[in-house]
Protein backbone atom coordinates (compact mmCIF):
# COMPACT_ATOMS: atom_id res chain seq x y z
CA UNK A 1 0.00 0.00 0.00
CA UNK A 2 1.82 3.10 -1.19
CA UNK A 3 -1.11 5.52 -1.39
CA UNK A 4 -0.67 5.92 -5.13
CA UNK A 5 -3.96 6.38 -6.86
CA UNK A 6 -2.91 6.36 -10.47
CA UNK A 7 -3.02 3.66 -13.09
CA UNK A 8 -1.73 3.97 -16.62
CA UNK A 9 -1.11 7.63 -15.94
CA UNK A 10 -4.80 8.50 -15.22
CA UNK A 11 -5.92 9.48 -11.72
CA UNK A 12 -8.65 7.40 -9.94
CA UNK A 13 -11.61 8.86 -8.02
CA UNK A 14 -10.72 10.97 -5.02
CA UNK A 15 -10.73 8.59 -2.00
CA UNK A 16 -11.70 11.47 0.28
CA UNK A 17 -14.84 12.35 -1.66
CA UNK A 18 -17.83 11.59 0.65
CA UNK A 19 -20.11 8.75 -0.37
CA UNK A 20 -23.59 7.90 0.89
CA UNK A 21 -23.46 5.40 3.80
CA UNK A 22 -26.00 3.18 2.06
CA UNK A 23 -25.48 2.11 -1.52
CA UNK A 24 -28.17 3.35 -3.93
CA UNK A 25 -29.57 -0.17 -4.27
CA UNK A 26 -29.78 -0.78 -0.50
CA UNK A 27 -33.35 0.07 0.52
CA UNK A 28 -33.29 -1.38 4.03
CA UNK A 29 -35.17 0.60 6.67
CA UNK A 30 -35.00 0.74 10.45
CA UNK A 31 -38.62 -0.03 11.39
CA UNK A 32 -39.64 -3.56 12.25
CA UNK A 33 -42.59 -4.85 14.23
CA UNK A 34 -40.67 -7.00 16.73
CA UNK A 35 -39.08 -5.81 19.95
CA UNK A 36 -35.96 -7.52 21.22
CA UNK A 37 -38.12 -9.45 23.70
CA UNK A 38 -40.63 -10.59 21.07
CA UNK A 39 -37.91 -11.65 18.67
CA UNK A 40 -36.24 -13.63 21.50
CA UNK A 41 -39.53 -15.29 22.44
CA UNK A 42 -40.08 -16.42 18.89
CA UNK A 43 -36.48 -17.59 18.53
CA UNK A 44 -36.87 -19.66 21.72
CA UNK A 45 -40.01 -21.27 20.24
CA UNK A 46 -38.11 -21.94 17.02
CA UNK A 47 -35.32 -23.70 18.90
CA UNK A 48 -37.83 -25.84 20.81
CA UNK A 49 -39.69 -27.01 17.71
CA UNK A 50 -36.49 -27.59 15.70
CA UNK A 51 -35.24 -29.83 18.53
CA UNK A 52 -38.44 -31.82 18.59
CA UNK A 53 -38.24 -32.26 14.82
CA UNK A 54 -34.60 -33.37 14.60
CA UNK A 55 -35.08 -35.75 17.52
CA UNK A 56 -38.06 -37.52 15.97
CA UNK A 57 -36.53 -37.66 12.50
CA UNK A 58 -33.49 -39.34 14.07
CA UNK A 59 -35.68 -41.72 16.05
CA UNK A 60 -37.76 -42.66 13.00
CA UNK A 61 -34.71 -43.72 10.97
CA UNK A 62 -34.63 -47.16 12.63
CA UNK A 63 -38.39 -47.63 12.23
CA UNK A 64 -38.86 -47.10 8.49
CA UNK A 65 -38.12 -50.04 6.15
CA UNK A 66 -37.95 -47.92 2.99
CA UNK A 67 -34.23 -47.42 2.36
CA UNK A 68 -34.58 -44.13 0.47
CA UNK A 69 -36.76 -42.64 3.23
CA UNK A 70 -34.37 -43.89 5.90
CA UNK A 71 -31.44 -42.07 4.30
CA UNK A 72 -33.37 -38.83 3.72
CA UNK A 73 -34.58 -38.76 7.32
CA UNK A 74 -30.96 -39.11 8.48
CA UNK A 75 -29.94 -36.18 6.30
CA UNK A 76 -32.85 -33.95 7.29
CA UNK A 77 -32.28 -34.75 10.97
CA UNK A 78 -29.05 -32.77 10.81
CA UNK A 79 -30.61 -29.81 9.01
CA UNK A 80 -33.03 -29.21 11.86
CA UNK A 81 -30.39 -29.86 14.51
CA UNK A 82 -28.31 -27.14 12.88
CA UNK A 83 -31.26 -24.76 12.88
CA UNK A 84 -31.75 -25.40 16.60
CA UNK A 85 -28.07 -24.59 17.11
CA UNK A 86 -28.46 -21.32 15.17
CA UNK A 87 -31.38 -20.30 17.41
CA UNK A 88 -29.53 -21.48 20.55
CA UNK A 89 -26.64 -19.16 19.67
CA UNK A 90 -28.95 -16.26 18.79
CA UNK A 91 -30.74 -16.21 22.15
CA UNK A 92 -27.88 -14.71 24.22
CA UNK A 93 -27.48 -12.06 21.54
CA UNK A 94 -31.11 -11.12 22.25
CA UNK A 95 -30.33 -10.60 25.96
CA UNK A 96 -31.37 -14.11 27.06
CA UNK A 97 -28.26 -15.35 28.83
CA UNK A 98 -29.96 -18.58 29.86
CA UNK A 99 -31.14 -19.98 26.52
CA UNK A 100 -32.99 -22.84 28.24
CA UNK A 101 -35.42 -20.35 29.79
CA UNK A 102 -36.86 -19.45 26.40
CA UNK A 103 -36.43 -22.90 24.82
CA UNK A 104 -40.07 -23.70 25.39
CA UNK A 105 -43.24 -24.35 23.42
CA UNK A 106 -45.63 -21.39 23.14
CA UNK A 107 -48.46 -23.33 24.79
CA UNK A 108 -49.67 -26.78 25.84
CA UNK A 109 -51.57 -27.18 22.59
CA UNK A 110 -48.31 -27.25 20.62
CA UNK A 111 -47.01 -29.93 22.99
CA UNK A 112 -50.13 -31.98 22.22
CA UNK A 113 -49.48 -31.49 18.51
CA UNK A 114 -45.86 -32.67 18.84
CA UNK A 115 -46.91 -35.67 20.94
CA UNK A 116 -49.37 -36.72 18.24
CA UNK A 117 -46.90 -36.08 15.42
CA UNK A 118 -44.18 -38.17 17.05
CA UNK A 119 -46.48 -41.03 18.02
CA UNK A 120 -46.31 -43.28 14.90
CA UNK A 121 -43.63 -45.96 15.27
CA UNK A 122 -44.56 -49.14 13.36
CA UNK A 123 -42.81 -50.06 10.08
CA UNK A 124 -46.12 -49.75 8.24
CA UNK A 125 -46.68 -46.14 9.27
CA UNK A 126 -44.20 -44.29 7.06
CA UNK A 127 -47.04 -42.38 5.38
CA UNK A 128 -48.24 -41.04 8.75
CA UNK A 129 -44.70 -40.12 9.79
CA UNK A 130 -44.02 -38.20 6.60
CA UNK A 131 -47.46 -36.56 6.49
CA UNK A 132 -46.95 -35.14 9.97
CA UNK A 133 -43.47 -33.80 9.40
CA UNK A 134 -43.69 -32.68 5.79
CA UNK A 135 -47.33 -31.73 5.22
CA UNK A 136 -48.06 -30.14 8.58
CA UNK A 137 -45.04 -29.10 10.64
CA UNK A 138 -42.57 -27.98 8.00
CA UNK A 139 -45.14 -25.85 6.11
CA UNK A 140 -46.02 -24.23 9.45
CA UNK A 141 -42.36 -23.50 10.09
CA UNK A 142 -41.95 -22.02 6.63
CA UNK A 143 -44.94 -19.77 7.30
CA UNK A 144 -43.71 -18.55 10.69
CA UNK A 145 -40.13 -18.04 9.50
CA UNK A 146 -41.34 -16.11 6.45
CA UNK A 147 -43.53 -13.89 8.62
CA UNK A 148 -40.58 -13.11 10.88
CA UNK A 149 -38.28 -12.52 7.92
CA UNK A 150 -40.68 -10.09 6.27
CA UNK A 151 -41.59 -8.12 9.38
CA UNK A 152 -38.51 -7.71 11.51
CA UNK A 153 -36.15 -4.77 11.14
CA UNK A 154 -33.81 -5.41 8.26
CA UNK A 155 -31.09 -3.42 10.00
CA UNK A 156 -31.39 -4.05 13.74
CA UNK A 157 -32.36 -7.73 13.50
CA UNK A 158 -30.09 -8.63 10.59
CA UNK A 159 -28.47 -11.59 12.39
CA UNK A 160 -31.90 -13.24 12.87
CA UNK A 161 -32.70 -12.57 9.22
CA UNK A 162 -29.49 -14.26 8.14
CA UNK A 163 -30.34 -17.38 10.17
CA UNK A 164 -33.95 -17.35 8.93
CA UNK A 165 -32.72 -17.35 5.34
CA UNK A 166 -30.37 -20.29 5.98
CA UNK A 167 -33.14 -22.21 7.74
CA UNK A 168 -35.74 -21.43 5.08
CA UNK A 169 -33.45 -22.70 2.33
CA UNK A 170 -33.29 -26.07 4.11
CA UNK A 171 -37.00 -26.06 4.94
CA UNK A 172 -38.02 -25.59 1.32
CA UNK A 173 -35.62 -28.32 0.14
CA UNK A 174 -36.70 -30.73 2.86
CA UNK A 175 -40.39 -30.01 2.31
CA UNK A 176 -39.99 -30.85 -1.38
CA UNK A 177 -38.06 -34.04 -0.55
CA UNK A 178 -40.68 -35.13 1.98
CA UNK A 179 -43.63 -34.31 -0.26
CA UNK A 180 -42.09 -36.26 -3.13
CA UNK A 181 -41.38 -39.24 -0.86
CA UNK A 182 -45.02 -39.17 0.22
CA UNK A 183 -46.30 -38.97 -3.33
CA UNK A 184 -44.11 -41.94 -4.27
CA UNK A 185 -45.43 -43.98 -1.33
CA UNK A 186 -49.13 -43.25 -1.86
CA UNK A 187 -50.33 -45.69 -4.50
CA UNK A 188 -53.87 -46.61 -3.40
CA UNK A 189 -57.05 -44.88 -2.26
CA UNK A 190 -56.54 -46.38 1.18
CA UNK A 191 -53.04 -44.95 1.48
CA UNK A 192 -54.27 -41.60 0.27
CA UNK A 193 -56.98 -41.62 2.93
CA UNK A 194 -54.45 -42.49 5.62
CA UNK A 195 -52.34 -39.48 4.68
CA UNK A 196 -55.40 -37.20 4.58
CA UNK A 197 -56.76 -38.45 7.92
CA UNK A 198 -53.47 -38.09 9.75
CA UNK A 199 -52.81 -34.67 8.26
CA UNK A 200 -56.29 -33.48 9.25
CA UNK A 201 -55.85 -34.77 12.80
CA UNK A 202 -52.54 -32.94 13.21
CA UNK A 203 -53.75 -29.83 11.43
CA UNK A 204 -56.57 -29.52 13.99
CA UNK A 205 -54.08 -29.76 16.85
CA UNK A 206 -51.83 -27.17 15.23
CA UNK A 207 -54.81 -24.89 14.68
CA UNK A 208 -55.54 -25.08 18.39
CA UNK A 209 -51.93 -24.13 19.10
CA UNK A 210 -52.07 -21.15 16.74
CA UNK A 211 -48.87 -22.17 14.93
CA UNK A 212 -45.32 -22.89 16.04
CA UNK A 213 -45.08 -19.68 18.08
CA UNK A 214 -48.69 -19.69 19.24
CA UNK A 215 -51.45 -17.29 18.11
CA UNK A 216 -49.95 -14.67 15.82
CA UNK A 217 -47.34 -17.04 14.39
CA UNK A 218 -47.99 -15.48 11.00
CA UNK A 219 -49.49 -12.19 12.24
CA UNK A 220 -53.10 -11.13 12.38
CA UNK A 221 -54.83 -10.72 9.04
CA UNK A 222 -57.70 -8.78 10.64
CA UNK A 223 -55.67 -6.05 12.29
CA UNK A 224 -55.54 -2.64 10.57
CA UNK A 225 -52.45 -1.45 8.73
CA UNK A 226 -51.72 0.99 11.54
CA UNK A 227 -52.01 -1.68 14.25
CA UNK A 228 -49.86 -4.19 12.44
CA UNK A 229 -47.06 -1.65 12.07
CA UNK A 230 -47.44 -0.08 15.49
Amino acid at each position, binding site marked *: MTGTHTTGGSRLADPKKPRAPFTPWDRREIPGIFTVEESARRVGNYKWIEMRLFEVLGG*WVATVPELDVKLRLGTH*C*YHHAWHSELWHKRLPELREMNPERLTVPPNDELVAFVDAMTEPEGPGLTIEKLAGAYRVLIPAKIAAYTYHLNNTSTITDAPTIRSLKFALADEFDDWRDGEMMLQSLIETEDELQRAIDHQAKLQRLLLAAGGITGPGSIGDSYSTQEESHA
Partner: protein
Amino acid sequence: MRKAFPVEDLARDGRFVRVPLAERFDDPRTARVEQGAGKNKRGPGRLTPDRPDAPDAARALMHGIFVGEIQALEGAGRTCWDFEVGSGNGEGIAEVPFELKLDMARQCWDEARHCEISIKLSAHMGTELGEFSENTFLYEAACNPDPVLRLTGVNRALEGLAIDVFNTMREFGDIAGDPVLEFCEDWMLADEVTHVKMGSDWLRKLTANDKPRQERALEFQRVVDKLFSLGGFRGEEEDSPVRLARRFRELAGFEEAEMDTLAEIAKEAREEMEARVEANRAAVAS
Protein backbone atom coordinates in the same frame (compact mmCIF):
# COMPACT_ATOMS: atom_id res chain seq x y z
CA MET B 1 -42.68 -43.76 19.69
CA ARG B 2 -40.81 -45.70 22.34
CA LYS B 3 -37.64 -44.34 23.94
CA ALA B 4 -35.65 -47.55 23.40
CA PHE B 5 -35.97 -49.39 20.12
CA PRO B 6 -35.08 -53.11 20.26
CA VAL B 7 -32.73 -54.59 17.70
CA GLU B 8 -35.25 -57.18 16.54
CA ASP B 9 -37.60 -54.38 15.42
CA LEU B 10 -35.08 -52.68 13.11
CA ALA B 11 -37.04 -52.00 9.93
CA ARG B 12 -35.75 -53.47 6.66
CA ASP B 13 -37.16 -54.20 3.23
CA GLY B 14 -37.40 -57.73 1.83
CA ARG B 15 -33.87 -57.81 0.40
CA PHE B 16 -32.16 -58.01 3.77
CA VAL B 17 -31.40 -61.35 5.48
CA ARG B 18 -30.23 -61.41 9.08
CA VAL B 19 -27.81 -64.03 10.40
CA PRO B 20 -26.80 -64.00 14.08
CA LEU B 21 -23.08 -63.56 14.67
CA ALA B 22 -22.77 -66.80 16.65
CA GLU B 23 -24.44 -68.76 13.84
CA ARG B 24 -22.02 -67.29 11.34
CA PHE B 25 -18.97 -68.16 13.43
CA ASP B 26 -20.25 -71.68 14.11
CA ASP B 27 -20.66 -72.35 10.41
CA PRO B 28 -18.05 -75.04 9.56
CA ARG B 29 -17.64 -73.41 6.14
CA THR B 30 -15.73 -70.60 7.84
CA ALA B 31 -12.93 -73.10 8.61
CA ARG B 32 -10.60 -72.01 5.84
CA VAL B 33 -7.17 -73.64 6.21
CA GLU B 34 -4.15 -72.75 4.13
CA GLN B 35 -0.99 -74.84 4.05
CA GLY B 36 2.10 -72.73 4.11
CA ALA B 37 5.79 -73.26 4.99
CA GLY B 38 5.09 -76.30 7.09
CA LYS B 39 2.50 -74.67 9.35
CA ASN B 40 -1.23 -74.25 9.28
CA LYS B 41 -2.41 -70.69 8.58
CA ARG B 42 -5.96 -70.04 9.57
CA GLY B 43 -8.34 -67.17 9.09
CA PRO B 44 -9.38 -65.32 5.98
CA GLY B 45 -5.98 -63.69 5.38
CA ARG B 46 -5.03 -60.17 4.35
CA LEU B 47 -7.05 -58.65 1.57
CA THR B 48 -4.75 -58.22 -1.43
CA PRO B 49 -5.62 -58.04 -5.14
CA ASP B 50 -3.51 -61.13 -5.96
CA ARG B 51 -5.74 -63.40 -3.86
CA PRO B 52 -7.93 -65.54 -6.12
CA ASP B 53 -10.98 -64.66 -4.04
CA ALA B 54 -10.10 -60.96 -3.72
CA PRO B 55 -13.07 -59.64 -5.78
CA ASP B 56 -15.60 -61.63 -3.75
CA ALA B 57 -13.88 -60.83 -0.45
CA ALA B 58 -13.85 -57.12 -1.28
CA ARG B 59 -17.50 -57.21 -2.33
CA ALA B 60 -18.47 -59.01 0.87
CA LEU B 61 -16.53 -56.50 2.93
CA MET B 62 -18.18 -53.61 1.09
CA HIS B 63 -21.61 -55.07 1.77
CA GLY B 64 -20.65 -55.44 5.42
CA ILE B 65 -19.64 -51.78 5.45
CA PHE B 66 -22.99 -50.85 3.90
CA VAL B 67 -25.12 -52.63 6.50
CA GLY B 68 -22.81 -51.30 9.21
CA GLU B 69 -23.44 -47.76 7.97
CA ILE B 70 -27.19 -48.29 8.09
CA GLN B 71 -26.96 -49.44 11.69
CA ALA B 72 -24.60 -46.60 12.60
CA LEU B 73 -27.17 -44.18 11.14
CA GLU B 74 -29.94 -45.83 13.11
CA GLY B 75 -27.90 -45.81 16.32
CA ALA B 76 -27.01 -42.12 16.04
CA GLY B 77 -30.64 -41.32 15.25
CA ARG B 78 -31.84 -43.21 18.30
CA THR B 79 -29.40 -41.26 20.49
CA CYS B 80 -31.06 -38.06 19.23
CA TRP B 81 -34.43 -39.42 20.33
CA ASP B 82 -33.83 -41.68 23.34
CA PHE B 83 -32.35 -39.11 25.74
CA GLU B 84 -33.60 -35.85 27.16
CA VAL B 85 -31.40 -32.76 27.25
CA GLY B 86 -29.66 -32.28 30.59
CA SER B 87 -26.26 -32.25 32.22
CA GLY B 88 -25.56 -35.88 31.39
CA ASN B 89 -23.52 -36.22 34.54
CA GLY B 90 -25.80 -38.57 36.43
CA GLU B 91 -25.42 -42.27 35.69
CA GLY B 92 -28.68 -43.98 34.91
CA ILE B 93 -30.29 -40.65 34.11
CA ALA B 94 -31.32 -40.63 30.48
CA GLU B 95 -29.98 -37.14 29.87
CA VAL B 96 -27.33 -35.78 27.55
CA PRO B 97 -26.06 -32.27 26.81
CA PHE B 98 -27.67 -30.40 23.91
CA GLU B 99 -24.34 -30.31 22.09
CA LEU B 100 -24.04 -34.10 22.24
CA LYS B 101 -27.38 -34.40 20.47
CA LEU B 102 -26.15 -31.97 17.83
CA ASP B 103 -23.09 -34.18 17.29
CA MET B 104 -25.32 -37.23 16.89
CA ALA B 105 -27.52 -35.42 14.38
CA ARG B 106 -24.40 -34.49 12.44
CA GLN B 107 -23.36 -38.14 12.58
CA CYS B 108 -26.77 -39.10 11.15
CA TRP B 109 -26.05 -37.00 8.09
CA ASP B 110 -22.54 -38.43 7.76
CA GLU B 111 -23.77 -42.02 8.08
CA ALA B 112 -26.57 -41.38 5.58
CA ARG B 113 -23.90 -40.18 3.13
CA HIS B 114 -21.80 -43.25 3.89
CA CYS B 115 -24.80 -45.43 3.05
CA GLU B 116 -25.16 -43.59 -0.24
CA ILE B 117 -21.44 -43.97 -0.97
CA SER B 118 -21.50 -47.67 -0.02
CA ILE B 119 -24.50 -48.33 -2.28
CA LYS B 120 -22.76 -46.62 -5.20
CA LEU B 121 -19.51 -48.48 -4.47
CA SER B 122 -21.32 -51.81 -4.17
CA ALA B 123 -22.82 -51.26 -7.61
CA HIS B 124 -19.38 -50.23 -8.86
CA MET B 125 -18.00 -53.53 -7.54
CA GLY B 126 -20.84 -55.62 -8.98
CA THR B 127 -22.83 -56.32 -5.81
CA GLU B 128 -26.58 -56.22 -5.26
CA LEU B 129 -28.06 -55.01 -1.98
CA GLY B 130 -28.94 -58.02 0.15
CA GLU B 131 -26.51 -60.32 -1.67
CA PHE B 132 -24.70 -60.92 1.63
CA SER B 133 -26.27 -61.42 5.03
CA GLU B 134 -26.59 -58.80 7.77
CA ASN B 135 -25.81 -59.21 11.44
CA THR B 136 -26.93 -56.58 13.87
CA PHE B 137 -24.20 -56.44 16.49
CA LEU B 138 -23.36 -52.87 15.51
CA TYR B 139 -26.83 -51.61 16.40
CA GLU B 140 -26.85 -53.73 19.56
CA ALA B 141 -23.91 -51.70 20.85
CA ALA B 142 -26.04 -48.60 20.25
CA CYS B 143 -28.77 -49.85 22.56
CA ASN B 144 -26.96 -49.31 25.85
CA PRO B 145 -29.22 -47.30 28.18
CA ASP B 146 -26.28 -45.27 29.56
CA PRO B 147 -25.41 -42.62 26.95
CA VAL B 148 -21.75 -42.64 27.98
CA LEU B 149 -21.47 -46.39 27.45
CA ARG B 150 -23.42 -46.09 24.22
CA LEU B 151 -21.07 -43.46 22.83
CA THR B 152 -18.00 -45.30 24.01
CA GLY B 153 -19.19 -48.57 22.48
CA VAL B 154 -20.33 -47.04 19.22
CA ASN B 155 -18.12 -44.01 18.60
CA ARG B 156 -14.88 -45.38 19.99
CA ALA B 157 -15.16 -49.13 19.37
CA LEU B 158 -17.44 -49.37 16.31
CA GLU B 159 -16.34 -46.19 14.58
CA GLY B 160 -12.77 -47.07 15.53
CA LEU B 161 -13.20 -50.33 13.64
CA ALA B 162 -14.54 -48.28 10.73
CA ILE B 163 -11.27 -46.32 10.71
CA ASP B 164 -9.35 -49.60 10.43
CA VAL B 165 -11.68 -50.98 7.74
CA PHE B 166 -11.72 -47.83 5.60
CA ASN B 167 -7.96 -47.50 5.78
CA THR B 168 -7.63 -51.12 4.66
CA MET B 169 -10.09 -50.66 1.81
CA ARG B 170 -8.40 -47.43 0.80
CA GLU B 171 -5.06 -49.26 0.55
CA PHE B 172 -6.74 -52.11 -1.31
CA GLY B 173 -8.15 -49.60 -3.81
CA ASP B 174 -4.71 -48.11 -4.27
CA ILE B 175 -2.97 -51.47 -4.81
CA ALA B 176 -5.77 -52.79 -7.02
CA GLY B 177 -5.68 -49.68 -9.21
CA ASP B 178 -9.24 -48.66 -8.35
CA PRO B 179 -9.20 -44.86 -7.90
CA VAL B 180 -12.97 -44.71 -7.27
CA LEU B 181 -12.71 -47.07 -4.30
CA GLU B 182 -9.63 -45.30 -2.95
CA PHE B 183 -11.26 -41.86 -3.32
CA CYS B 184 -14.49 -42.85 -1.54
CA GLU B 185 -12.77 -44.67 1.31
CA ASP B 186 -10.48 -41.71 1.92
CA TRP B 187 -13.46 -39.37 2.32
CA MET B 188 -15.30 -41.76 4.62
CA LEU B 189 -12.13 -42.23 6.65
CA ALA B 190 -12.08 -38.47 7.33
CA ASP B 191 -15.63 -38.64 8.71
CA GLU B 192 -14.85 -41.65 10.89
CA VAL B 193 -11.91 -39.89 12.52
CA THR B 194 -14.36 -37.10 13.38
CA HIS B 195 -16.86 -39.56 14.87
CA VAL B 196 -14.26 -41.33 16.97
CA LYS B 197 -13.01 -37.99 18.22
CA MET B 198 -16.58 -37.11 19.23
CA GLY B 199 -16.65 -40.31 21.28
CA SER B 200 -13.29 -39.60 22.87
CA ASP B 201 -14.24 -36.02 23.71
CA TRP B 202 -17.65 -36.88 25.20
CA LEU B 203 -16.23 -39.75 27.22
CA ARG B 204 -13.71 -37.35 28.72
CA LYS B 205 -16.24 -34.56 29.35
CA LEU B 206 -19.07 -36.63 30.80
CA THR B 207 -16.91 -38.70 33.12
CA ALA B 208 -14.44 -36.02 34.21
CA ASN B 209 -15.78 -36.24 37.76
CA ASP B 210 -16.93 -39.84 37.72
CA LYS B 211 -14.00 -42.22 37.34
CA PRO B 212 -16.01 -45.40 38.11
CA ARG B 213 -18.40 -44.57 35.27
CA GLN B 214 -15.46 -43.88 32.98
CA GLU B 215 -13.97 -47.26 33.86
CA ARG B 216 -17.27 -49.01 33.17
CA ALA B 217 -17.46 -47.25 29.81
CA LEU B 218 -13.93 -48.30 28.90
CA GLU B 219 -14.68 -51.87 30.00
CA PHE B 220 -17.74 -51.85 27.75
CA GLN B 221 -15.52 -50.59 24.96
CA ARG B 222 -13.10 -53.48 25.53
CA VAL B 223 -15.96 -55.98 25.31
CA VAL B 224 -17.20 -54.40 22.08
CA ASP B 225 -13.66 -54.16 20.72
CA LYS B 226 -13.16 -57.86 21.28
CA LEU B 227 -16.40 -58.63 19.49
CA PHE B 228 -15.45 -56.27 16.68
CA SER B 229 -12.09 -57.98 16.32
CA LEU B 230 -14.19 -60.78 14.81
CA GLY B 231 -11.88 -63.63 15.66
CA GLY B 232 -8.80 -62.08 14.13
CA PHE B 233 -10.51 -60.20 11.32
CA ARG B 234 -8.95 -56.99 12.71
CA GLY B 235 -5.47 -57.09 14.20
CA GLU B 236 -1.78 -56.41 13.73
CA GLU B 237 -0.73 -59.80 12.39
CA GLU B 238 0.79 -59.84 8.92
CA ASP B 239 -2.24 -61.70 7.53
CA SER B 240 -4.94 -59.78 9.42
CA PRO B 241 -7.60 -58.85 6.85
CA VAL B 242 -8.03 -55.46 8.51
CA ARG B 243 -5.03 -53.77 10.10
CA LEU B 244 -5.12 -51.46 13.09
CA ALA B 245 -4.81 -47.90 11.69
CA ARG B 246 -2.72 -46.41 14.49
CA ARG B 247 -2.00 -43.06 12.85
CA PHE B 248 -5.66 -42.23 12.24
CA ARG B 249 -6.73 -43.54 15.64
CA GLU B 250 -4.21 -41.19 17.22
CA LEU B 251 -5.84 -38.27 15.38
CA ALA B 252 -9.16 -39.40 16.84
CA GLY B 253 -7.96 -39.23 20.45
CA PHE B 254 -6.63 -42.75 21.07
CA GLU B 255 -3.53 -43.02 23.24
CA GLU B 256 -0.65 -45.35 22.41
CA ALA B 257 -1.37 -47.59 25.40
CA GLU B 258 -5.01 -47.93 24.35
CA MET B 259 -3.96 -49.10 20.90
CA ASP B 260 -1.51 -51.60 22.41
CA THR B 261 -4.37 -52.98 24.51
CA LEU B 262 -6.58 -53.15 21.43
CA ALA B 263 -3.89 -55.13 19.60
CA GLU B 264 -3.79 -57.57 22.51
CA ILE B 265 -7.57 -57.91 22.51
CA ALA B 266 -7.48 -58.63 18.78
CA LYS B 267 -4.80 -61.27 19.31
CA GLU B 268 -6.88 -62.98 21.99
CA ALA B 269 -9.94 -62.93 19.74
CA ARG B 270 -7.92 -64.49 16.95
CA GLU B 271 -6.62 -67.29 19.17
CA GLU B 272 -10.11 -68.06 20.40
CA MET B 273 -11.39 -68.13 16.83
CA GLU B 274 -8.60 -70.45 15.75
CA ALA B 275 -9.51 -72.86 18.55
CA ARG B 276 -13.15 -72.72 17.48
CA VAL B 277 -12.26 -73.32 13.83
CA GLU B 278 -10.11 -76.29 14.83
CA ALA B 279 -13.03 -77.76 16.77
CA ASN B 280 -15.35 -77.22 13.80
CA ARG B 281 -12.88 -78.93 11.46
CA ALA B 282 -12.69 -81.90 13.79
CA ALA B 283 -16.48 -82.06 13.91
CA VAL B 284 -16.69 -81.99 10.10
CA ALA B 285 -14.01 -84.69 9.79
CA SER B 286 -15.63 -87.08 12.26
